[in-house]
């Protein structure tokens, strides 16, 4: 794990350095023109968010049922990363919406869904920080229920309202514009790698904290 960190960080850095060039050289989308370029980081951020939500839910369940301390640390890290990527997704989506729809915020399905997910995982962090003793279990419940409610939120919000482009954009993109398709997936891969690095660093922080607590306990004896 630790040995992998440096080479992966180097690769990610190189990919990040190339990403702007790839994005700038990608062809213009015919209707939205330049503003569509937000998409190249916007979509990957949501992919990263989906992955980290899944990680958080699974890790929370593992912690609750198996009692693995490691799983708990992974869950905290994943929740924090979720909030960060969610924040970027919301802000970039809002900027895009300002240009494409003329408003900063639309109560459309995806935006609402994203907003609610952000709320749930922000709640997770609040519980974690202010829940007092036993907050790990509370947070684990929040992680499991948050993951379980996500599909329901998605469905309900989808029925409630829809203005956002359908997911089918991604499936047809491969045929309509292979160049764009390549750039999108390149960025997705870059951001996923970056997310992995953030997770690793955050887990390391949590491990160090646990180690420190143990040292304190040992010192008191």
């Amino acid at each position, binding site marked *: 794990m630790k040995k992998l*960190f*440096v080479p992966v*960080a*180097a690769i*990610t*850095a*190189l990919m*990040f*350095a*190339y*990403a*702007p*060039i790839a*994005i*700038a050289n990608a062809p213009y989308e015919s209707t939205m*023109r*330049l*503003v569509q*370029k*937000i998409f190249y*980081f*916007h979509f990957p*951020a949501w992919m990263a968010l989906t992955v980290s939500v899944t990680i958080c839910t699974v890790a929370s369940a593992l912690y609750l049922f198996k009692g693995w301390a490691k799983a708990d640390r992974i869950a905290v890290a994943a929740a924090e990363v979720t909030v*960060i990527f969610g*924040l*970027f997704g919301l*802000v*970039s989506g809002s*900027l*895009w919406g*300002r*240009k494409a729809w003329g408003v900063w915020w639309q109560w459309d399905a995806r935006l609402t869904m994203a907003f609610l997910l952000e709320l749930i995982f922000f709640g997770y962090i609040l519980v974690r920080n202010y829940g007092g003793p036993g907050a790990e279990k509370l947070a684990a419940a929040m992680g499991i229920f948050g993951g379980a409610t996500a599909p329901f939120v998605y469905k309900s919000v989808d029925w409630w309202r829809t203005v956002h482009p359908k997911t089918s954009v991604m499936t047809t993109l491969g045929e309509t514009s292979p160049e764009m398709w390549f750039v999108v997936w390149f960025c997705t891969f870059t951001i996923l790698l*970056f997310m992995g*690095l*953030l997770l690793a*660093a*955050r887990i*390391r*922080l949590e491990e*160090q*904290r646990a*180690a*420190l607590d143990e*040292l*304190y306990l040992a*010192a008191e004896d």
Partner: protein
Amino acid sequence: MIRRTWIALVTFVLLGANAFAQQAASDGFVPMSSLPPGEELPAARFVVASYAFFLMLMVFYVWTIWKRLAKVEQDMKELGRRQGGATR
């Protein structure tokens, strides 16, 4: 080691973003003639704002992790020193 890696990573990202900012800005200005007027300039602003936000957010987050790690490690050293002092 981790600290050095982070420095390297952040520098790379910064460099990359810098290159991008220039690219995006020129994208906004160069094809003026071929695009309908009054569209590219604001769009470029939104795109740049979006990527700049990404950069700032990630640098900030990495910085907070780094800061928190440094704090924990310092506490560890402190504790080790105090313990060392007590046994001597």
